[in-house]
């Protein structure tokens, strides 16, 4: 039985972008949002871990809970669970008192810290609310790192299991419905072709399937090194590094060419090591899930220019 092809990531309404620390999760999230907005969509991007980095990717002023337009059609916000709670009580439950009565606000803050899942629910709830509200074509989430995302996405179920009745229960029901619909919600995992990121991505794919109702919509493989040589060219390269030809090259360029060749050898070995991890990734991930490859950028600077470059590469990979 042939499964239906996955809904393309940009055709969904809510996309969580996760990945192991250091793999470029925020880079990919910001580029995805930029790509979508440049294609005429009205996009909200939300940063969950309030490190305040997201603004740097658009070279915009700092982001806050209230969304701000950072590029045409692209709005950015930073998650704040306390603000989310206030909004939730006011809009959903029509309990506007929290701002006024100190002890109650404090009590809720405490409850959010103590009761498992409350904070997660407030985060996911706000995002689901934005999607249901219909103001956006796409909500991109710069989600927690892969170690935390499962807990976040599984929170509505966890709370459903703990709370049998009450308003929260009614709330988690519609959230779950939204999160479980693969035409609406998807998860994009970012990794680099290195040992731990690949291992974690494969494990994440399993946990997402087993512990949450969210679908893995794709894996972005970031920082893929260019292939320097074909097979025959590599033989030429190896011959060049032999003492005779190397001495000849030194004389011709009037200097020490060894470091230049050594750097290329490093690049070749790096790529080779990474290729084995890429194979492992392809084997470890469901074949229906697309892998999107992004090239290594020889800049390491962050800023709007880099975000645009990544968005362009991402667009090519998605077939636009």
């Amino acid at each position, binding site marked *: 039985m042939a499964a239906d092809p996955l809904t393309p990531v940009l055709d969904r309404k809510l996309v969580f972008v996760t990945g192991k620390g250091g793999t470029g999760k925020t880079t990919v999230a910001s580029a995805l949002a930029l790509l979508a907005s440049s294609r005429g969509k009205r996009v909200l991007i939300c940063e969950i871990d309030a*490190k305040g980095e997201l603004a740097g990717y658009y070279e915009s002023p700092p982001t806050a809970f209230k969304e701000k337009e950072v590029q045409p059609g692209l709005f950015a916000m930073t998650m704040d669970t306390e603000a989310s709670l206030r909004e939730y009580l006011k809009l959903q439950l029509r309990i506007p008192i929290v701002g006024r009565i100190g002890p109650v606000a404090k009590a809720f803050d405490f409850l959010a810290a103590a009761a498992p899942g409350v904070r997660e629910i407030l985060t996911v709830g706000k995002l689901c609310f934005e999607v249901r509200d219909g103001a956006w074509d796409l909500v991109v989430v710069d989600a927690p790192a892969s170690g935390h995302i499962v807990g976040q996405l599984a929170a509505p179920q966890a709370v459903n299991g703990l709370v049998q009745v009450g308003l929260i229960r009614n709330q988690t029901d519609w959230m779950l419905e939204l999160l479980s619909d693969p035409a609406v919600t998807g998860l994009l995992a970012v990794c680099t072709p290195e040992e731990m990121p690949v291992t974690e991505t494969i494990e994440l794919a399993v946990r997402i399937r087993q512990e949450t109702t969210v679908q893995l919509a794709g894996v972005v493989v970031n920082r893929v090194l260019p292939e320097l040589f074909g097979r025959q*060219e590599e033989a*030429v390269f190896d*011959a060049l590094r032999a003492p005779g030809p190397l001495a000849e090259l030194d004389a011709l360029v009037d200097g020490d060419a060894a470091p230049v060749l050594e750097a290329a050898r490093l690049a070749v070995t790096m790529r080779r090591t990474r290729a084995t991890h890429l194979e492992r990734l392809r084997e470890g991930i469901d074949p229906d899930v697309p892998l999107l490859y992004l090239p290594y950028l020889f800049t390491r600077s962050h800023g709007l220019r880099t975000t645009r470059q990544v968005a362009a590469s991402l667009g090519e990979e998605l077939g636009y």
Partner: protein
Amino acid sequence: MAGRAPKRQTEESAAPTMDSLLATKEIVVACGPGGVGKTTTAAASALMAAVTHGSKVLVLTVDPAKRLANALGLDGIGNTEHRVPDAAFKAAGVKPRGELWAAMLDTKESWDSLIRHHAPDAQTRDEILANPLYQNISGRFIQSHDYIAMERLYEIHSAGEYDLIVVDTPPTRNALDFLDAPERLADFFSSRLLRWLIVPYRSKLVNVATKPFYQISDRILGTEFMSDISEFFILFQTMYDGFVERSKAVGRLLSDRRTTFVVVSTLEATPLREAEFFAEQLTERKLHLGAIVLNKVLPDYLHGRAGAKIAEAMKDRAEDLATELAPSLASGDAALGDPAQIARVLTEVADSYLNFQVVALREMEERATLGVVPDVLATVPFFDTDIYDLSGLLRLGEQIWG
């Protein structure tokens, strides 16, 4: 100034290194942003200490890569400490002066053992372990890792089995979470709000100030969940004193002179800023910042202007150079003498060098702007292959050792 004692020679000759730092400490906490090689650095440091110092060393890791776990003989080993076998050292060609032990952190199991330790009686213990809320907190929610890592460290240290414990910290949302964890837990249990929460299910004494809270909570969460929560806290309350005392002791241990922190980072802008922030916070909290380890640094030969000039020459004159080199390359194998192909290789090589130089120079710039000055600044070069075994780990360790 005749009366002044001459500067002792040792002070001049002994610039501190990781070697000297680890020789004088009992606890080393490796911390820093995600994805920089923290776990591997912790393992390599512990290994070096075991090999060179002749001490009994434990590395407490959180989530090691499978191959690293294999290298340490940790595969399939849970919470228990496990000695890295002599055979592994023999295979790596070293004879350690000391012993290397390793353990992985199992959060759920550690929480359970903590409950067993603190519970006043068997019934409370069983009720807590069976409480759905407890199972959620201990198993599913990541914040609980922070506390338990420090708690385990305390437990192992106070047992006094090891001369040195190197602990790898869990990946946290905020690098500081685990430092605050003991204090947060103590605050949590001494909180007045906690007592509030317990009151209505104990007695009907609900005062005017707290009444709205219960009304709202009941409405939102349902009475059943509220009573689950309060049951959990009532049970936990029996362990209150033990927990608070314990978490304060953990806090004291972290700020003790015998403990040092090693911040690991790469020279990429984002992780480095995070590492720097972390180092500043350590200093602010009067915790000992022993070292910063800069990991995965591109090699020095990528920096020079001389290299760039040669790469540019190779690129600009690729065809001429190829014609000149063709005869000697063809002498071994005629297939290697195609000038057009040689020119392509030379161009690719030169481009690759220039590309990596951009990154390497940016790394240097980042290092130059490093705002924190630790006692030890170790630089570890980029390894182009993965670490499979102890000898790989040793290769890395020697670079860290300085």
